Structures are given as C-alpha cells and as structure tokens.
C-alpha cells in the first residue's frame, strides 16, 4: 500500500501542479506533495524495518529491501528539503526577472515527475523498468536545466540530453543482453527481467554474456553517475541549471544511477562467482572507473572559477569514491560506501542551498565576485563554511567517518590505490578550502537579499551529517550492514 502512495503522490503532484500553474501558492503545494511523499517513504521504511524485505504487486513488480529503502528515504527527505529551499529561492529568481510564471509551472511540475521517476527506479523489481525510469528521470530534468533559457544553459541541457541519451542507450543494450542470458534460465516473458528472479538463479546465468552486459550497463548508468571519462555533462548541467535542480541532480540522481549499477553488479558477481579469485571483474572495473573519477575530478576542481561548477566536480569526486568503495566489496567497504552516499547527498545538497543564496546575493556564480558572506548574512556564510568543511572530510562530520573507512580498507586490500586517493583528497581539500575561505570571510559591499533565505534545510542536513559522524544509531548501523550484506559483503 505504502508503495502506491510513494509513487502516486509525486506523480499526481506533477499532474496537479502542471494544471494548477503558477498561482500564488504553487511553491507551497510543491512542498506539501514532497512532504506527503516523505511521509509515505517513512511509512514504507518503518514497514521494512519491522517485517524485512518484501516483494509486492502482481508477479512482483516492486521489490523493497534494506538497500533501496534507505535510498528511498534519503531521496524523499532531500526532495522535501529542496522543495522548502526552492520556495524563497525561486521567488527571488522571479523578482530578478530570470524566470516567469510559465517556467515556474514547468519547474514545479517537472520536479514532482522527476522525484516520481527516481522513486520508481529505486523500487521497481524489473531491470527493464529500471532503465525506463532512469531515462524518464533524465527527460524530466532536461527542460529544468535549460530553465533560464540562456545560451549556456541551453548548451548544457543539450549536452546533458545527448550524452546521457547515448549513455543510457548503452545501458539498454546491456539490459537486452541481460534478458538474453536470463531467458535461457527463466524462460521468456515478463518475469525474466525481475531482479529477485535473476538473483535466485544468478549462478546459472551465462558468464560471458553477463560480463559483456555489465560492461554496457556500467558505461551506460556510469555516464549518469558522472564517472570519468563520461562526466563532461555533469558540471555544465549543475552550473547552468537553477540551484534546486543542481541540488537534486547531485544529491539524488547520481545515487540512483549508482544504485542501478550496483543491482547489476550483484548479478554479475553471482554469475562469475566461482571463476574468479579475489576482486571480481565487475569490482575491478568499478574500482578503476572510481579511482579515475576521484583523481580527474580533484585536479579539475583546482581550475574552476565558477562556484557551482567547482562543487559539481566535487560531486564527481565523491561519487568516484563511493564507486571505488563498492568496487572493493566486502562488508566494511560496502558499509562505508553506503554511509558515504548518504553523507554526500546530505552535505552536497546543503552546500548547494547555501551556494544558491550566495550567488543570488552576489549576482554572479564567479567565485571572485562572492566575498565576505559572513559580514552581510552570517547564516549563509556559516552554512557554506560548515558545509565545505563537512564535504572535505574534516572530523567530526560524517564524511570523515566514511572516507576514513574507505581509505583504511583500501590500505588493507589494495595498497596501490591509497596514494592516489590521498593525493586526490589532498588536492581537493586545498583547492576548495582556499576558494571558499575568501568567499566567506573576505571584505564586501554586497546588499542583503530581498527575502528571508531558507536556511533551515542547510542546517538540518549539516546537523544530521554531524550527528552521523559522532554517533550512528544502532538500528541505522544494522540497516547499513544488512544492505552491505546484500551487495555481496
């Protein structure tokens, strides 16, 4: 029942807001729908905690286990806080004349559809529907990236569409190959692509076909995760779209894409299981792509002048780190990967909220133009500073805990990778901190914002990150451990 609410609420929200247009309280309605989605997600989570994994509806169209339910909760939560943030943010944008009623209507409607597509991708049991909803999530956000209709934003949206489209076409081919292998064991028809069925017979699936399928799936969904060298759409889309969109792209969509990769990896590992010692082929590929992303992103961060672009590259770096952790496999690394996914979503969206208001204040996204936030609006300044410290992995924030776990595991199991990781994290630290520091503490004559900025979400997220850094509640740790075990830990 919860599952239908979870998917139905944002979908009907999208329809309703499309019809409602941008009447006076559209932002509040948007927030209300997001809140109801969150309630449904919490109800679903409570049920999974109480009764364990479940397969529901028809032949088992939906499958909820600890791994995806935690992403569902995270997605619904960040979607809700982002809708709170977007209320004043979009109002200020409208007053600056960058948006009008028509575009805001498109924004609100697509936002809800986007959330619905992501939740469907997370909860569906069918690998084909997973593909369909990933593509739907892309389509829902293409017009959001180009919402400002500036030449740069149109270019970014075009790049986003074409690159992710081509990428996801590779994933479709991977899915076809998966079905090809599955059909031999499970017979043709609708149930052969159900993940639970595949998982039950994964040892019998033809290993060579699955190997090939995984390569295509990794390249395809990896494009959406933003893994180097397929990342070039990501900084553009994040920098040119409106900030709430950057926050959900970075905080949520990348996670969902990585989730799709992980579901495939479990199957491939199962099929290849008996043949390979040590690191599996899928794990090795993921470690390679992950490490490359971390290093490439860290060195590109150094060269950025646009604040949103810089943090977009930081997202590539962190997703690379998570991919690397999942690639290593094993209970500790998978646990750390899941924890890092959570921490990154919360922290990065908080940073984007703060950055959004800071850029509105300064009237530019160039970092040279943003100065002395702490003098004119201390809350934005502190939000940005604390968010930056958190994302850079300074203790006691939660990112430190997860990065520490990832690096110590790497030292034990793949010592060769450690210097690269440490170097990249060091470079990223130096360049991001060096840039943010004058933005927060420098001298300024910037005017204050016309509306009260929404900074509750920023501190809510950072508070959670801090709490998880100091103390992970036992049920949450238990939950992560179960999820890590599902990933083949």
């Amino acid at each position, binding site marked *: 029942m919860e599952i239908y609410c979870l998917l139905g609420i944002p979908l009907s929200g999208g329809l309703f807001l499309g019809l409602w247009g941008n009447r006076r309280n559209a932002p509040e309605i948007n927030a209300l729908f997001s809140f109801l989605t969150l309630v449904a997600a919490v109800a679903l989570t409570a049920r999974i905690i109480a009764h364990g994994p479940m397969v529901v509806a028809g032949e088992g169209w939906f499958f909820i286990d600890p791994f995806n339910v935690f992403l569902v909760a995270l997605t619904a939560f960040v979607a809700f806080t982002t809708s709170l943030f977007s209320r004043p943010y979009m109002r200020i944008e409208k007053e600056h004349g960058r948006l009008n009623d028509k575009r805001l209507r498109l924004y609100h409607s697509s936002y809800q559809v986007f959330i619905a597509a992501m939740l469907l991708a997370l909860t569906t049991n*069918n690998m084909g529907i997973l593909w369909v909803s990933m593509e739907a999530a892309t389509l829902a956000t293409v017009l959001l990236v180009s919402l400002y209709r500036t030449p740069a934003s149109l270019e970014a949206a075009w790049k986003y569409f074409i690159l992710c489209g081509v990428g996801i076409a590779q994933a479709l081919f991977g899915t076809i190959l998966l079905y090809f292998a599955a059909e031999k064991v499970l017979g043709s028809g609708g149930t052969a692509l159900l993940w639970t069925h595949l998982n039950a017979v994964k040892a019998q699936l033809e290993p060579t076909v699955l190997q090939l399928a995984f390569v295509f799936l990794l390249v395809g969904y990896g494009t959406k995760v933003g893994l180097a060298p397929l990342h070039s759409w990501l900084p553009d889309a994040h920098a040119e779209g409106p900030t709430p969109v950057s926050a959900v792209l970075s905080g949520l969509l990348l996670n969902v894409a990585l989730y799709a990769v992980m579901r495939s990896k479990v199957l491939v590992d199962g099929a290849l299981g008996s043949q390979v010692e040590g690191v599996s082929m899928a794990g090795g590929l993921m470690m390679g792509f992950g490490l490359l992303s971390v290093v490439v992103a860290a060195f590109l961060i150094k060269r950025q002048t646009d604040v949103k672009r810089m943090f977009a590259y930081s997202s590539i770096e962190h997703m690379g780190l998570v991919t690397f952790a999942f690639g290593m496999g094993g209970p500790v690394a998978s646990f750390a990967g899941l924890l890092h996914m959570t921490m990154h979503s919360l922290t990065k969206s908080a940073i984007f909220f703060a950055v959004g208001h800071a850029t509105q204040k300064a009237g530019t996204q160039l970092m040279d133009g943003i100065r002395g936030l702490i003098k004119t609006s201390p809350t934005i300044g502190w939000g940005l500073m604390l968010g930056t410290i958190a994302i850079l992995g300074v203790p006691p924030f939660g990112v430190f805990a997860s990065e520490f776990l990832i690096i110590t595991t790497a030292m034990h199991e793949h010592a060769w990778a450690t210097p690269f990781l440490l170097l990249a994290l060091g470079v990223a630290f130096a360049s991001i901190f060096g840039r943010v520091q004058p933005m927060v503490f420098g001298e300024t004559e910037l005017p204050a914002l016309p509306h009260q900025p929404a900074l509750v979400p920023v501190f809510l997220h950072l508070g959670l990150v801090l709490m998880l850094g100091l103390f992970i509640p036992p049920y949450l740790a238990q939950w992560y451990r179960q999820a890590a075990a599902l990933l083949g830990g």
Partner: protein
Amino acid sequence: MPLTYNLQVINLLAALLLLISFAMLSQRRIAGLITLFAWQGAALSASTAIVAWSTGQHHLYWSAGITLVLKVIAMPWFFYRLIKKLNVDRDVEPMINIPTTMLIGIALVIFAFNLALPISQMSGTVMRSTLGIAMATVLLAFLMMITRSKAIPQVIGFLAMENGLFFAATSATYGMPLVVEMGVALDVLVGVFVLGIFFFQIRETFDSLDLKHMEKLKER
C-alpha cells in the same frame, strides 16, 4: 518450408536496414534524412511482424505496431512539421568528406559482426545471424551523431540507434518483455516531444539549429 522462406525475407529486410543506415550517413539534406528514418522504421516494423508471424511470438505484433505508429508515422510527421515551422527544411549539412565517413562505417560493420559472433552463437532464435546487422546499425547511428553538427540530424541519429537496439532485441531474444518495450516506447515519445520544445528554445536563443554555436562550455 515456410520458415526458410520467411527467414530469407527477414534477412533481406535486415540488409535493407543496414543499407538505409549507410544512406543516412551520406544524406546531406534534413528532409531526406527524415524520409530515410521513416523507411528504416518501416523495415524494422516489417521484419518484427514477420518474425512474430513465423515464430508465433504474439507479443512481437505489439512491438511491430508500436514501431509502425511511432517511428514510421508519428515521428517523421512531427519532424517534417518541425522543420517547416522552424524553417530549416532547406538546411544542408556542410559535411566534409563523406567517403571517409563511409570507410569508417565499413570498418564499424566488420567490428560489429565480430562483436556479435559469440552472442549469436549462443542464441536460439531463428534470426540470430542478423544480430551483427543490428549492432552495425547501432554503431553507424552513433557515427552519424558524432559527425553531424546540426541538432535534428543528431536526434535522428539517436533514434536510429534506438531502432538498432530494438532490432538487436528482436534478433537475440524475440524482443524484450512487453512492459519494458512499452516503457521504452513511451520514453522515446516523451523524449521527442521534449526535444521539440527544446528546438524552439535553441532556435529562439541562437537563431539557428547549428550546434557550432554551442561550444562555449569547456574546461579552460
């Protein structure tokens, strides 16, 4: 034996599909490209229908029908209207070196056949030998996307790639489960619709659909 006869027709249509892919590579005019795309869809739809008929896989009729409605009728019609409205129907792509592109295309076809060989040996379908052609169609469409500088040809390349993937699914496994195929078709439809809106935005901002204007966002 009717099956061998049908198989020959399927092989003929598959060859046609490949030929159309090459024709698309060499087509300079956008209107001509759309016509070729419609023909490609027709070949795909016809071959799917014949496979459905000769093997008794009834859900493939649906797939053939969807292809016919979407890719032979709706999308070409939509694109024709679009180029009329945007007034780009006289646009000629100033392409350099079609012969070189063709040579690269031939190399891709050989590569595709090699790639498909191990999979088609494992496949149990009657038309497994056409898997190589499906792969080649995908790669040629990809090549077209790389070499074109205008927005509409790039999108047609993208849709041609989708055609190739559908054909691959039919050759290897008699198509994907129906739900998935419906979902994919829905995505393609929505995608084309979104792009229609998007073209107008590009046109409004850049005064042209040439993607050469869109090279500002780069790492410096």
